[in-house]
């Protein structure tokens, strides 16, 4: 599917097939969860990042069903570049109403970046002012897990992590996505 066709599809699904929820409710709920996890792990941000990623992973495993049902494309992406287009222009569009920019491909077409001009999870957010969160916490890390979990269910093992975040004072919010391998048909792994 071409990039412009993916855009139109994402727009169409967002308009007609998606139940909306108040954005502030989502922001407040997510922010509350992150704050609670920070408290639980006594501001060990490495651990907090890990927990957020894990929560996302478990969401992603289930969310892919909804994505497939709503997008109803009925066919596999023919290559990883097409997968990236569908993630950005359909996946992120229909669930978060944003379309991150796809950029910084490596020459082997296995690694790209998603650059978020807007990030609905991070509205009104300030990181803890403890001199460490700015360097250690990836506030939106749940998104990495969601992507990893969702792609795993469609036979792609990926590695995902943020490399910059405007909340930390960076100029952009950028997630790196790397295709590790296509998974052969095998039994799905257990939830953790």
């Amino acid at each position, binding site marked *: 599917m071409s990039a412009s066709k993916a855009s139109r599809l994402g727009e169409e699904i967002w308009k007609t097939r998606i139940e909306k929820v108040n954005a*502030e*409710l989502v922001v407040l*709920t997510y922010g509350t969860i992150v704050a*609670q996890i920070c408290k639980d792990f006594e501001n060990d941000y490495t651990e907090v990042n890990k927990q957020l990623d894990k929560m996302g992973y*478990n969401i992603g495993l289930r969310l892919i069903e909804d994505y497939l049902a709503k997008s109803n494309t009925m066919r596999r992406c023919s290559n990883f570049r097409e997968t990236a287009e569908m993630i950005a222009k359909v996946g992120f569009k229909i669930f978060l109403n944003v379309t991150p920019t796809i950029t910084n491909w490596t020459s082997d077409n296995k690694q790209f970046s998603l650059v978020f001009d807007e990030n609905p999870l991070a509205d009104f957010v300030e990181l803890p002012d403890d001199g460490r969160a700015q360097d250690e916490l990836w506030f939106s890390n749940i998104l990495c897990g969601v992507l990893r979990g969702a792609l795993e269910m469609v036979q792609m093992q990926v590695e995902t992590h943020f490399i910059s975040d405007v909340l930390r004072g960076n100029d952009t919010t950028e997630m790196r996505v790397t295709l590790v391998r296509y998974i052969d048909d095998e039994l799905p792994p257990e939830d953790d």
Partner: protein
Amino acid sequence: GLGAGLGGGPAMGSVNGGSGRKMDEDEERDAVFARLEALGYRVGQGLVERFSRDRPRFNDTLDVIKFLCKDLWTLVFRKQVDNLKTNHRGVYVLTDNSFRPLSRMSAETSSQAIARAQPFLWFPCGVVRGALAAMGINATVTAESSELPAAVFQIKTIKTQS
């Protein structure tokens, strides 16, 4: 929904073994309840700060409850409360005949479904209690469902000593 995002959730299976073991599971369950409720509380507080800012001052408790049933309920659950009752002595009972978080639940038997739905009411209870607190009303809030997808919330306001 958002509920699914709150981690693994409690062990809700049937209880085996001796009474000591049972105690642990009850405690664990209560801890999960308290945690979800506390998360909701903070969300409720935040929502009220954000959405009651530009409206006129509340006259009395009933005014606040009405704001909760209409404006806030619509914001969070996308419809208004269907029925509001009060004993005029600080207890308010809110009935939502089609409570959004329970709207797509089913199980083999209805009693099973209701038991499984109960944990999903903890977070909303917290939201309601947090919202009320932000509007100056201390209360205890409990909720139950006797038939899906309806939910009944009971608010008992606590008189502050003055």
